């Protein structure tokens, strides 16, 4: 029996491990399928990590190293090259690696920190051939930044998520020509700063309300046809335009990787595709916690670490058998606010509630209603789907109710 098993060693897994260690837990094991610690940060060589936490702009590998150094100094055990295959409801983990073969571990508590994967959906329904030269932006990032290999010279990017924007700059600096970034929606899903420093700095056009309608080429990609879309996101035939290119990168979003969570009986939120959790990041299965991109997709790693520390600390309390007085308050949203994390409150304490909105809204108020009465407001000049928001609710709000409603109201 192991006290705490953590699946994944990205910033979420490492932060959770450190927090549990600091809360007195020593019997910890991190399982990581890659051959190094750090998760996705290893390939994110650009700067922009850790401004909130460390007050400086670190690159991904530097941010990961700050945590890896601590994990090593604390002698927290980890197994690399180890793939977790299954987790059962009674917290038996089945994993495999070259050295141990297939093995099982029973854990008192488990923290899920498997991160997310890239959506591939966008690529599947484009007309035309399927030549070589089509990559997800993250795969291209791994090629260029880890393997030192450029996947192409003339590039079109579909989707304006941050990874796509970052890769537009990266490939441009390495001598490729990025002809356009096409975004189906009328706004970009990426951070404003990335549009500025990754596209505008290099004169790369961001074509909003545009999509790729056809792929050309037999063996290698030779070009794509793009077109503007109408308000129902249907391509307008008269606006078709052919672009010669040898590479198409897809940056159409990320989705939490929750196959393992499902096998453990963890209930998932249909909007986030991650677990439904309480303020401690505990799932519906007692002793199983989730944090980081496996719970909901984060754009800022600082929030990943913060969330993982909550999970680590809470798991430690659970392992020690501490029980707090419990309440049950659900959180409902109005659609303009797409989701909240946590989705429910089970203990009477101050809680930061994180959420995302469905569209770009200006001059709005985030309002929290309890039994039909407005009990909390926060004004925001602008909110956008690409940027996670949060409000801090004090514990009094949770008394005498079983549901709170989050609404976004126009000022």
């Amino acid at each position: 029996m192991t006290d705490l098993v953590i699946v994944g060693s990205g910033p979420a897994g490492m932060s959770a491990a450190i927090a549990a260690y600091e809360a007195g837990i020593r019997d910890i094991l991190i399982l990581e399928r890659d051959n190094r610690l750090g998760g996705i940060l290893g390939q994110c060589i650009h700067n922009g990590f850790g401004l909130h936490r460390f007050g400086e702009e670190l690159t991904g590998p530097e941010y990961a190293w700050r945590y890896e150094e601590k994990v090593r100094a604390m002698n927290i055990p980890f197994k690399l090259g180890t793939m977790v295959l299954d987790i059962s409801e009674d917290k038996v983990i089945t994993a495999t690696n070259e050295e141990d073969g297939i093995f099982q571990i029973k854990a008192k508590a488990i923290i899920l920190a498997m991160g997310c994967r890239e959506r591939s959906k966008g690529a599947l329904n484009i007309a035309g051939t399927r030549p070589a030269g089509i990559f997800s932006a993250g795969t291209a990032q791994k090629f260029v930044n880890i393997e030192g290999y450029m996947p192409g010279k003339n590039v079109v990017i579909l989707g304006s998520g941050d990874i796509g924007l970052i890769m537009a700059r990266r490939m441009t600096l390495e001598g490729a020509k990025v002809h356009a970034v096409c975004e189906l929606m009328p706004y970009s899903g990426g951070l404003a700063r990335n549009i500025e420093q990754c596209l505008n700095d290099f004169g790369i056009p961001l074509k909003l309300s545009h999509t790729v309608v056809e792929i050309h080429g037999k063996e290698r990609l030779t070009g794509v046809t793009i077109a503007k879309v109408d308000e129902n996101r249907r391509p307008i035939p008269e606006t078709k335009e052919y672009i010669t290119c040898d590479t198409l990168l897809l940056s159409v979003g990320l989705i939490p990787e929750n196959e393992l969570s499902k096998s453990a009986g963890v209930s998932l939120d249909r909007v986030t595709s991650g677990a439904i959790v309480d303020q401690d990041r505990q799932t519906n299965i007692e002793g199983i916690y989730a944090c980081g991109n496996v719970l909901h997709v984060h754009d800022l790693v600082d929030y990943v670490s913060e969330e993982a520390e909550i999970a680590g600390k809470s798991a430690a309390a659970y392992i020690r058998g501490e029980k707090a007085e419990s309440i049950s308050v659900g959180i409902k949203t109005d659609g303009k606010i797409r989701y909240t994390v946590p989705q429910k409150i089970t203990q009477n304490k101050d809680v930061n509630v994180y959420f995302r909105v469905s569209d770009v809204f200006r001059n709005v108020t985030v309002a929290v209603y309890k039994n039909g009465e407005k009990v909390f407001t926060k004004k925001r000049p602008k909110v956008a789907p690409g940027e996670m928001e949060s409000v801090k609710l004090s514990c009094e709000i949770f008394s005498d109710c079983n549901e709170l409603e989050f609404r976004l109201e126009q000022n």
Partner: protein
Amino acid sequence: MKRELTCIICPIGCSLEVEIEDGVVKSVKGNTCIRGKKYAETECTAPMRTVTTTMKCDDGSVVPVKTDAPIPKEKMFELMEIVNNSVAHLPISVGDVIIENVFGCNIVATKNM
């Protein structure tokens, strides 16, 4: 003259409105911190960028590197050429200076290799 900018200093990405007269920044609006004001001032006079890239190592692998301070924006491609024509020698630790003094900064490693 008015100029609209998006601050790139942190992920908040404030929309800035800058008032410029004879090449001098007169006022900055829309920033939520002092760094935004500073950014607007340099961006409208002498824009600077931190560059992150990779560099070949003597065993054929690549090490991620960065400029330890922002460099003039128009020097980015020249800097890339310098980095791409150099080879880093292993072993390397985070923070090691790989190339000294290019455009007023050092190229430092961001990963242990």
